[in-house]
């Protein structure tokens, strides 16, 4: 039988393929049972196909429902974990604020710690944040208990962001904190040379070098030189007994001790140390 149609439209096939086709075509056929028609009519009489997939339920629902359930459960735990973390952080802050006693009502921290150790029964920190904070003080974990009269913020002070910010540098009054700051003392090179003009400027003298001599033009009021009595017109002869030239330089560790000037041709020695 298979050869009949094999030659009709198959075209070129190998001998192996032809033998396989003939073998399959020679298989005995099965027939429907005798009650086939009756069973078909009975199923039709039931009114609808006995589909394993109800038509009212879309196919994608079978996959979407389990996925939605997994997502819901996973989302619940994720939100729960996140909320616990957030509440914990908030509790920490509230506990810190509660732990700060008011200046009038709270005794010093040491006394509170003693009371907590001797009187208070064991309790959780959530139940009594003040006691918990006091216990922390007693164990030395909290070292900055406010003293009576200290400047405390009634609205609660501090924040996490403020706490982790690097400390501000304390600068003398009048120093611009935004200006480039000088390095630390160790950053200076003690072997560096200091020109004579810089030394004179530091002690408050503005001098002009002409005629192979330094002549004072002006003196800053209330400066070291002004208070020592140096006056305009003085010719600076030596500083720390060192003769001055145009390019005289001092060591980095220079300390002004004395200065000798010629006033009206007469030498006058002025002691800078006294001033």
């Amino acid at each position, binding site marked *: *039988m298979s050869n009949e*149609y094999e030659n*009709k439209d198959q075209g070129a096939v190998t001998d*192996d393929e032809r*033998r396989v086709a003939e073998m*399959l075509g020679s298989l*005995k056929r*099965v027939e429907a*049972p005798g009650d086939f028609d009756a069973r078909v009519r009975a*199923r039709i009489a039931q009114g609808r196909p006995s589909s394993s997939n109800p038509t009212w339920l879309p196919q994608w629902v079978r996959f979407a429902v389990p996925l939605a359930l997994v997502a819901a459960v996973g989302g619940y735990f994720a939100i729960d974990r996140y909320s616990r973390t957030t509440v914990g952080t908030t509790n920490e802050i509230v506990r810190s604020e509660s732990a700060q006693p008011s200046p009038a009502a709270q005794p010093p921290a040491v006394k509170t710690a003693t009371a907590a150790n001797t009187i208070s029964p064991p309790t959780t920190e959530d139940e009594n944040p003040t006691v918990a904070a006091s216990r922390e003080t007693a164990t030395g974990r909290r070292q900055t208990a406010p003293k009576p009269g200290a400047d405390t913020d009634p609205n609660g002070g501090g924040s996490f962001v403020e706490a982790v910010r690097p400390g501000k540098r304390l600068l003398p009054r009048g120093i611009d904190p935004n200006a480039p700051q000088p390095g630390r003392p160790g950053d200076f090179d003690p072997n560096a040379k200091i020109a004579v003009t810089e030394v004179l400027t530091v002690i408050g003298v503005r001098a002009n070098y002409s005629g192979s001599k330094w002549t004072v033009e002006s003196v800053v009021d209330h400066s070291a030189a002004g208070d020592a009595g140096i006056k305009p017109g003085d010719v600076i002869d030596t500083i720390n007994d060192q003769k001055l030239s145009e390019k005289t330089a001092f060591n980095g560790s220079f300390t002004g001790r004395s200065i000798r000037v010629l006033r009206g041709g007469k030498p006058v020695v002025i002691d800078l140390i006294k001033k």
Partner: protein
Amino acid sequence: MAHGNIVSTDAEENQRTVPEERSSDHQLIEATKNGDENAFAEIVARYRNPLTNYLYRFLNDYEEAVDLAQETFVRVYFAIDRYHTQYAFSTYVYRIATNLAISELRRRKRRRLLSLTGLFQSDEDSEVEFQPTDPAALQDDQLADDERDRTIAKAIAALPEKYRVPIILRDIEGRSYDEVAEIMGLGLGTTKSRISRGRGLLREKLEHYF
């Protein structure tokens, strides 16, 4: 696995759908649409054996094949208003039967996957448990033929779906290449390629019989 009513291969009246029968199919469909129950009974009588045989070779399970063949006719009946006569009715019913059979196979796979005990049970219908029988060990000719048919049936059932469907339609049901391509919704070249590849796989599995 059930082996149903094995009969001789002389049921030629249902082997192929010639153009005259197709037009007759369409007339029967129209009569069914107009409420003629006898017309639908004639359709069932015309296609019940080819469909049962096709599904039996596909699933290698007679009871399941009969059940799905009946289900095919039930679906045809309830969707008869949506049937378009631009396609041959035989293509239409084979396509429905193929989809039902593929769904059934996937349902079986899911059952095997979900069944914990299934991991330790031998499944006669398993596609991977094909073991050809040595024909030399069978002395009786009839017994040898029956055993050969069962071996071939197992080999067919062990084929991947994409090769099994066109092989059965073409070499067992005798459908033309064009009709097989229409039933599968594939191009003609792809269909021929799959049939050739399926025959090659069967040749490897059944080399004892060549």
